[in-house]
């Protein structure tokens, strides 16, 4: 890459630098500032001045320092070696940085994003010289981890006649594996290619979203499902469990690849993922979770402008795996920190603020980000998806603030976290009253097909009960529960059981942390069976107290802990016992 001096520093204000004497810089060009070679990006050009946002601490940068242009936009390297790696916001491998600078991150460290030393076994596709290579086509593969076969793609910017393709063998990522005759001359092919982070990767076609992303979290899958390729926001004040929910989904959802972006959050949370994931086993493949995970860590004490970039870095990696035909889930924790980084940079550039100091282009940026999700037909003809799960941290837990409000406009699924539930340590604290999913109708077909009929009806019934409960609770608050007839108090009771037994899920319990769709369906059926039979029994004169004392009720509440995903037939026994107990009870009152 040719490096040229594009100008000199004129002013330094935190991460924002004004450069002078700039004539041939390009918008969004990757630049390096000063002799420390701090990474930056051109974000504004004006006359012979340029505004540069620097991704590292600018301490010590003075007017007059040179600025070097790289001639290309801020990009990521896409190729084998991504899985299981932890990167900072601009795709620098933190493990490598650790080897160089020990426990603290020094400035201006220049390490390749993908390891240059590691060799990969390349398996070419059966392609003869002269074959036409279209952009995004698969030309071979590399077994990256036990679990992930990394498909090698033609870069989306290249097309032409294949001149030669290497045979099976070991290659480093900088070794050419072939060449293409393009309109602009011959181009070498490598195991990796660059892609600018702010530009969505091209696809052939968007497909409808009608397959749910199964997360193993009951309140999500059953009440507010998300589709593969969908977008969801998880807003919640501090301590309501945004990160816990994100972690739980990252662990147990049925996506093939997870990209976890820790954007402006705690360092220990990333360490938690790093220490926990290599030991957790994915129930679907029996391999460790780290073998399907890429981590992007830009913790809150790392430079603020790299925080802004980290979201794009993460989603670009996700798109790359989607283009190989995989289902990818992206966790962005938290998009509010990203929006705040935008605000800070905007403030430093002295732009006119809109709401609460946020720049007026905030909604555009949020929309651009969430639109990169989708279920796509890729250029190579495969199907893949990117699902975006963004946490939002509203100040004071107030959902009316700009980031939450604008995010709501561009996502179709909303899991609002509730402070009251979190205070009662009801986790996941997803409120069943504020949350919604617009994917419900899209995915109900899948559920009916794969989970047996009646799923949609059952879900509707329990939601109706939960809403009835709210109204009844209002009455209770005024006159006390004794004033209600048994039939209505029974509804309160069933809802309490549903909340304790079904909605609450213990992320640290070996059995409860993850529920298969079958388990979810059976649990819901049993609770509803208790409601329906119980309501009839009450009509026949059975008292609520008697009903509640049945031993089987305690067993229903604890079934989430006692019946594992593999023992689904245990639910039949439980249901049979429930029926028997109710039969006995009713006989007493005949």
């Amino acid at each position, binding site marked *: 890459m040719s490096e040229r001096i594009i100008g000199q520093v004129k002013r*330094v204000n*935190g991460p924002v630098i004004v450069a002078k004497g700039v004539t041939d810089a390009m918008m969004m060009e990757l630049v390096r500032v000063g002799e420390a070679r701090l990474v930056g990006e051109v974000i504004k050009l004006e006359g012979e001045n340029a505004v540069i946002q620097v991704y590292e601490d600018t301490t010590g940068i003075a007017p007059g320092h040179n600025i070097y242009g790289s001639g290309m936009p801020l990009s990521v390297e896409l190729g084998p070696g991504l899985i299981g790696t932890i990167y900072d916001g601009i795709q620098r491998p933190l*493990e490598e940085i650790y080897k160089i600078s020990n426990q603290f991150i020094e400035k201006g460290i220049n390490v390749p994003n993908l390891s240059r030393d590691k060799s990969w076994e390349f398996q070419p596709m059966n392609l003869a010289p002269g074959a036409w290579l279209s952009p995004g086509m698969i030309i071979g593969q590399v077994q990256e981890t036990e679990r992930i076969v990394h498909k090698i793609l033609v870069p989306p910017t290249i097309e032409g006649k294949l001149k030669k393709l290497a045979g099976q063998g070991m290659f480093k990522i900088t070794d050419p594996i072939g060449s293409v005759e393009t309109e602009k001359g011959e181009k070498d092919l490598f195991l990796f290619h660059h892609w600018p982070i702010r530009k969505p990767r091209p696809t052939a076609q968007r497909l409808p979203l009608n397959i749910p992303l199964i997360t193993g979290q009951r309140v999500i899958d059953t009440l507010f499902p998300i589709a593969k390729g969908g977008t969801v926001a998880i807003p919640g004040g*501090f301590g309501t469990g945004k990160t816990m929910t994100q972690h739980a989904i990252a662990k147990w959802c049925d996506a093939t690849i997870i990209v976890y972006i820790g954007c402006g959050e705690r360092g220990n949370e990333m360490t938690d993922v790093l220490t926990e994931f290599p030991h957790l086993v994915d129930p679907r493949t029996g391999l460790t979770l780290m073998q399907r995970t890429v981590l992007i860590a830009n913790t809150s*004490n790392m430079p603020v402008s790299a925080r802004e970039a980290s979201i794009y870095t993460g989603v670009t990696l996700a798109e790359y795996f989607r283009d190989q035909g995989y289902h990818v889930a992206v966790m962005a924790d938290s998009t509010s920190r990203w929006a*705040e980084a935008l605000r800070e940079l905007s403030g430093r550039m*002295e732009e006119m603020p809109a709401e609460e100091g946020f720049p007026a282009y905030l909604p555009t940026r949020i929309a651009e980000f969430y639109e990169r999700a989708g279920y796509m037909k890729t250029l190579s003809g495969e199907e893949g998806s990117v699902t975006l799960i963004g946490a939002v941290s509203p100040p*004071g837990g107030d959902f009316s603030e700009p980031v939450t409000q604008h995010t709501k406009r561009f996502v179709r699924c909303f899991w609002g976290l509730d402070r009251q539930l979190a205070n009662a*340590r009801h986790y996941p604290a997803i409120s069943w009253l504020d949350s919604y999913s617009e994917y419900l109708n899209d995915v109900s077909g899948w559920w009916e097909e794969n989970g047996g009929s009646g799923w949609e009806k059952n879900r509707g019934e329990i939601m109706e009960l939960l809403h009835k409960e709210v109204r009844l609770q209002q009455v209770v608050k005024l006159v006390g529960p004794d004033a209600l007839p048994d039939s209505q108090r029974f509804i309160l009771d069933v809802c309490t059981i549903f909340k304790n037994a079904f909605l609450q899920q213990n992320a640290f319990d070996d059995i409860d942390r993850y529920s298969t769709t079958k388990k979810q369906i059976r649990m819901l059926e049993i609770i509803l069976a208790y409601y329906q039979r119980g309501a009839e029994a009450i009509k026949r004169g059975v008292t609520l107290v008697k009903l509640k004392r049945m031993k089987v009720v305690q067993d229903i509440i604890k079934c989430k802990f006692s019946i594992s995903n593999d023992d689904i037939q245990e639910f039949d026994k439980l249901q049979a016992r429930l029926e028997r107990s109710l039969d006995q009870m009713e006989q007493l009152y005949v």
Partner: protein
Amino acid sequence: MSDINQISKTQKKLLAGREYIGVHRIDGPLVFIQKTHPVGYRELVECVDKDGHTRLGLVLDTSESVVVCQIFEGTSGLTMPDSRVRFKGEPLTIGVTSKMLGRVFNGLGMPIDGGPAPLAEAELDVNGKPINPTAREYPRDFIQTGISVIDGMNTLIRGQKLPIFSGNGLPHNELAAQIARQAKIKGGKTDFAVVFAAMGVKHDVAQYFIRSFESTGVLENVALFLSLADDPSIERLITPRTALTLAEHLAFNKDMHVLVIMTDMSNYCESLREISTIRGEIPSRKGYPGYLYSDLAELYERSGMLKGFKGSITQLPILTMPNDDISHPIPDLSGYITEGQIVFEREMYARNIYPPVAGLPSLSRLMKDGIGEGMTRNDHPHLASQLFAAYSYVKDVRNLASVIGEEELTPLDHQYMEFGEAFEKKFVSQGFEEDRSIEETLDIGWEVLSHLPVEELHRVTDEEIETYYKG
């Protein structure tokens, strides 16, 4: 064009010796100087007033035409023509040594106890550097504070940052002193030190801490950095950074376990707002600058444990919530960065409950990995969860009782009322000198839980009920 990149070290030294006489503008703690050599961002500044007294400062904004510096000791007494300014060409550093324990310093690390400045073992940049997340060791060592509501329900872990969200007139200082006095690791005796940073607190509060450390004989293990209420407000911005720089030295170069007490974070944020306003920055919520979150994170994230290092930094910041409002930007943003919070409730204190820790909004995020079998006791996780759930229901019942009267409650709700009373009076409430072991704490937990019928206990296992339940 003067190209600073090619300037040799000697030239740099010469530039650092260059003195500018007269400044262009003084506004609050900010000084503006025109026509300088190229000055680096965040360089250290020495400003000499007309009496020859040197004040330290930092470059906040640098350009070819004007350099903006903030002066930590304030600008009162500075004159425009007679002030002389030197740019040192390097960031603000302090000399640190383990000999600083037992001493008292001002916010910039200069001794104010009458003794000489200790001989430095290392010169470190006060701003620190971000810790690489891969270098961190996930904290999981339980610290026994001897305070039931913390040990039992909001467990403090070594390397955690756990703030106290308090209000004016509440006993946060007492609690912090009690934790500093009683904190211990199960079964081990290790090198420990306390670094105490006071920002804008009153003299008597600082005295309270000094006396408290003195009376327990730990004063020689404590370094105090005091920037009190009558010191220039700008000095508060550097105080926690100086303190944390020493803490990092003690923890990662001297293998010590350091507890950092910072009080009061609200004053720190006020100073930040003051500077931001003077600089004419665009404010976000309540006039605080948009980078308040990042700035606080720079402080709070300087805690934890590192791979290959024996020491640790545990932070206990204290902040008073303005008007007891937890959604105010200071507690709100702190809560998003720290690993939990201990929240005080005025109403509990009024009912003579010490420590007045509100049961529900308090939280320790690192608790999950530091408790249970082998660390505290096997029943701890479930017991804590059950206490939270039951106490949360108590709050509902109390609301109900305040509307319909206590007599109208169902028998079960009456039992919950009894449980709530016992929980607050026996479990939460304890003496200032009382040091309970974790077993005592858990046993009291079961004792108060035994006010409830066994069918209500959904979050504990049958075996645990068998062993511990006394109802």
